[in-house]
């Protein structure tokens, strides 16, 4: 099985391992991520303004490319996923954005939201299946108490992201369980890490990540997993906080394909 794949800017730089462990794990699970040719940065945050068109076009290009290959489009970074999924919703449901974006793009076939966008977690849950994943685990992460940090972007707005229950999600906990580890549910797992505020106002972001970290360790977690490079960066600002790793690193470890991948 082959999917179109949108890595995004950070997975080519500071978060190379998020990408590398995902590709290796995908092969071990029997599917392939084929990177979209000449993809462009999604911009990191979804352009909320209903009159903003230019800032949505890089997503439209990626979506149309996947459509032209007849494939579903897979993302890893929470921010890329959020932006592309919401632009896809605009292309399906907002006539004004759809018309203006297509007038600008002049594609051979206009894009009207045909592509199905999947986060890697959704591929694991809905295409591979957590039971099948559990059977492929050669190195179960027994005894590890892991807190899932969802953050905002995968979950909200729930109506559009349709990723999981936005207030009481479970996909990451089910993932942790499939790897043989023990998920730790804690109250702040879907509260904001501060996002881009950490560029100019580190103190404000650190207050927020301190609360999240304290919540997770208070409930017994020994480490946190995330899909988002910015969440990871922010959560690491907390002094003496729990270690924060990308979920794909644990996946590669459990599948026995971690060795040999450059960290």
């Amino acid at each position, binding site marked *: 099985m082959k999917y179109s794949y949108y890595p995004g800017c950070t997975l080519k730089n500071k978060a190379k391992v998020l990408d590398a462990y995902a590709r290796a794990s995908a092969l071990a699970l029997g599917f392939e991520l084929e990177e979209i040719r000449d993809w462009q940065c999604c911009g990191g945050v979804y352009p909320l303004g209903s009159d903003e068109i230019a800032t949505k076009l890089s997503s439209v290009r990626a979506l149309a490319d996947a459509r032209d290959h007849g494939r579903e489009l897979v993302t890893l970074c929470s921010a890329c996923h959020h932006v592309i999924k919401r632009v896809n919703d605009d292309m399906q449901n907002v006539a004004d954005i759809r018309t203006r974006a297509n007038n600008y793009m002049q594609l051979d076939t206009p894009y009207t939201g045909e592509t199905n966008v999947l986060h890697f977690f959704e591929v694991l849950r809905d295409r591979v299946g957590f039971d099948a994943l559990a059977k492929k685990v050669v190195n179960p992460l027994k005894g590890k108490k892991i807190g899932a940090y969802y953050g905002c972007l995968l979950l909200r707005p729930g109506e559009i992201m349709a990723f999981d229950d936005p207030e009481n999600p479970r996909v990451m906990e089910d993932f942790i369980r499939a790897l043989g580890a023990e998920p730790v549910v804690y109250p702040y797992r879907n509260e*904001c890490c501060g996002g881009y505020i950490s*560029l100019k106002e580190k103190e404000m972001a650190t207050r927020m990540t301190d609360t999240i970290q304290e919540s997770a360790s208070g409930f017994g977690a020994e480490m946190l997993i995330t899909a988002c490079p910015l969440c990871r960066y922010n959560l690491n600002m907390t002094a003496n906080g729990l270690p924060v790793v990308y979920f794909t690193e644990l996946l590669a470890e459990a599948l026995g394909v971690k060795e040999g991948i450059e960290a």
Partner: protein
Amino acid sequence: MSNVSKTERQAAMIREISGANPAKCMKCGKCSATCPAFDEMDIKPHQFVSYVQDGNIEALAASKSLWKCLSCFACIERCPRNVKPAKLIDAARQIVEREKGGDYLSPDEIPALLDPELPQQLLVSAFRRYRR
């Protein structure tokens, strides 16, 4: 152009850019209760709605809340009336940024803010939110 008409024009622009309808608000305050940046804001999320309704755009445009919203979408998710306070805040921010000199971030500031771990995602996100 008189101030009144500029205010009216800006209020209409906020409604248009945001696609949100402040008239639906029933003042339950759930948006402010859930906002992780509440303590940092001078105008709170539930008050944003009233400012737009009353056409009090000048105060809104001067509010530091524009730069405190994290786009976490908690207020949008938890609003029982689908009023979308984060979209109103973003539209007010757009009005400021679309005027000359309204940017909150300059490329000149960046070198001093960098550290070896800082992800590219943080820079692109901040640039998109803080300037045109």
